[in-house]
């Protein structure tokens, strides 16, 4: 659903980080920041929480691990045991390499999938850019426009003061 945003464009990442800090200090909420590359220090400036992706990895890898080990045990011990060189049916140690591989595979694929889902990235999604060239050499801050709690004048002034090269009001679906 299209909404109104106030978008400030920056040329330098350092000005961007300072602007984010200042805007938040004045009680404005940052909708998002757009950049052609990750800008370090911005996570703290925006107050972003640590990503929970590692939990997805842990759970998926644990499921992969248990599934692979139990399946090998089931197939080699219960379902059809093969006598190969007189080795015991339950050669648990020999099941470790495949268990490890499946755990890594499950962990990796699940994390990548969770990332794409959470970030709304999918083939066919059309990207809406907050400002031109934010995937090339420009940085942008977007503030959600809310009539009741938003003093546009002050926000504009703060953004200009912190070095924004351009401040625009746009209506789109970011």
């Amino acid at each position, binding site marked *: 659903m299209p909404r109104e945003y106030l978008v400030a464009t920056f040329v330098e*990442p*350092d000005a961007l980080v300072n602007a984010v800090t200042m805007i938040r200090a004045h009680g404005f909420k940052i909708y*998002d*920041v*757009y*950049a*052609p*590359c*990750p*800008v*370090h*220090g*911005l*996570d703290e400036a*925006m107050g*972003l929480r640590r*990503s929970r*992706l*590692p939990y997805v*990895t842990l759970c998926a890898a644990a499921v992969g691990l248990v599934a692979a080990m139990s*399946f*090998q045990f089931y*197939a*080699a011990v219960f379902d*059809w045991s*093969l006598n*190969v060189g007189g*080795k015991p049916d339950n*050669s648990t140690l*020999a*099941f470790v*390499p*495949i268990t*490890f*591989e*499946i755990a*890594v*595979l499950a*962990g*990796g*694929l699940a*994390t*990548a999938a969770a*990332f794409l889902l959470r*970030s709304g*990235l*999918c*083939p*066919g*999604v*059309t*990207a*809406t*850019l*907050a400002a031109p*060239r*934010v*995937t*090339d*050499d420009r940085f942008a801050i977007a503030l959600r426009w809310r009539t009741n709690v938003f003093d546009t004048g002050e926000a504009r002034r703060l953004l200009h003061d912190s070095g924004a090269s351009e401040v625009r009001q746009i209506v789109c679906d970011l």
Partner: protein
Amino acid sequence: MRVYEPLTLADPARRFQLRRWIEGDPPLSQITDDVARPLNASPGKGWCACFAAALTALAVGIGCVWYQIATGIGVWGLNKTVGWGFDITNFVFWVGIGHAGTLISAILLLLRQQWRTSINRSAEAMTIFAVMCAGMFPLIHMGRPWLAFYVLPYPNSRGPLWVNFRSPLLWDVFALNTYLTISLVFWYVGMIPDFATLRDRASAGVKKSIYGILSLGWNGSHRTWSRYETLSMILAGLATPLVISVHSIVSMDFATSILPGWHTTLFPPYFVAGAVYSGFGMVMTLLILTRTLMHLERYITHRHLDAMAKVMLLTGSIVGLSYGTELYVAWLSGNPYEQAVFYGRATGPYAWCFWTMVACNALAPQVLWSRRVRSHISALFVLSILVNVGMWLERFVIIVTSLHRSYLPSSWVMYRPTMIEVGTLIGSFGLFFTCFLLFIRLLPMIAIWEVKTGASAEPHEVVRHA
């Protein structure tokens, strides 16, 4: 009192840290232009000549593979004593090549080595193409590759008769497939932001639509970037033990057998070091070629080549140490069969392979102690070729010299590859280089966003006296 505080991009000192790996201090848009230029320009004569050569080699390979599948693998030089020859040598060689790509993309990311940023994309591509080439050999070795799905544990009408989970050959199936899949995911995820950059600079048309689909709607949101960095670290953390497991498992194809020359606990670390070594040799060959072909000297600098040369020196020395350890342990063990194999390697009919291997792998890299050699591009190129030759011979020596004279003297035979086997090896190089040359023409071969930030870099600490 000393106060440590993280530097942000705002700090000029940090900028210097990030940029010193590329020449000059190009503005961000210049970096995009430089990397995207080869994707839009028409290919140069050098690229066309290389591509024609690669396609020819690939055609030779396709012809040979077709012939051997149609006729049966009796057309190879294998016999009942030497059951593994060129096929498995090539398999181990190509898997090993892939390892440098993962080392550069994953392990150096975890170690926060900034010099990887210009070269990681092409090294990852190399990993994928090398693993594809490697996978081809066990497939054609099966003789009836259309039955390759038998190696998967699927419910079948024969019992179900499951695969033998205790066999290292089956571990290989899982290790290779996992490795290929995770490498592909890592590679593709790494390219999403670059596809978005290319999408937004392309004028409307087919290219823009393709980049649009590939970029999955990426719009540069920092919330996504933040998650993206976590994802990169997780994938790197997974790929690191994975890559070590892959060549360890490959080495167990040999080490778990009781054949003298194979049955040794040294194999896993020895194989992993050798893999990284050969992989760096190949990365060096490819990057020296591509920086010239694609005019990317500014991004793939002498300093990158110097850093890679140092890794080659380290891993080459580990490989040399392993050769010495193997010989010493054979002597120390007092096992006459073990001793005979190692003595036979150095003095037997395949001694020329052994000594060429020692010269290429253990002795040649020692010249890299010299800074002059490390800064001499032609010398590095020649050395990288020697490393490739030496590491291929290493696998040949391990496989063939151990098999051709084992316990039973009445079974002792020689193995000579046929033209079909040689043609298949040439074909695998053709496949590899065809894929790689297409890659540098069609995809951003330098990670644009990583070069822009040195994103992998830890915020450096400065000491401020308060």
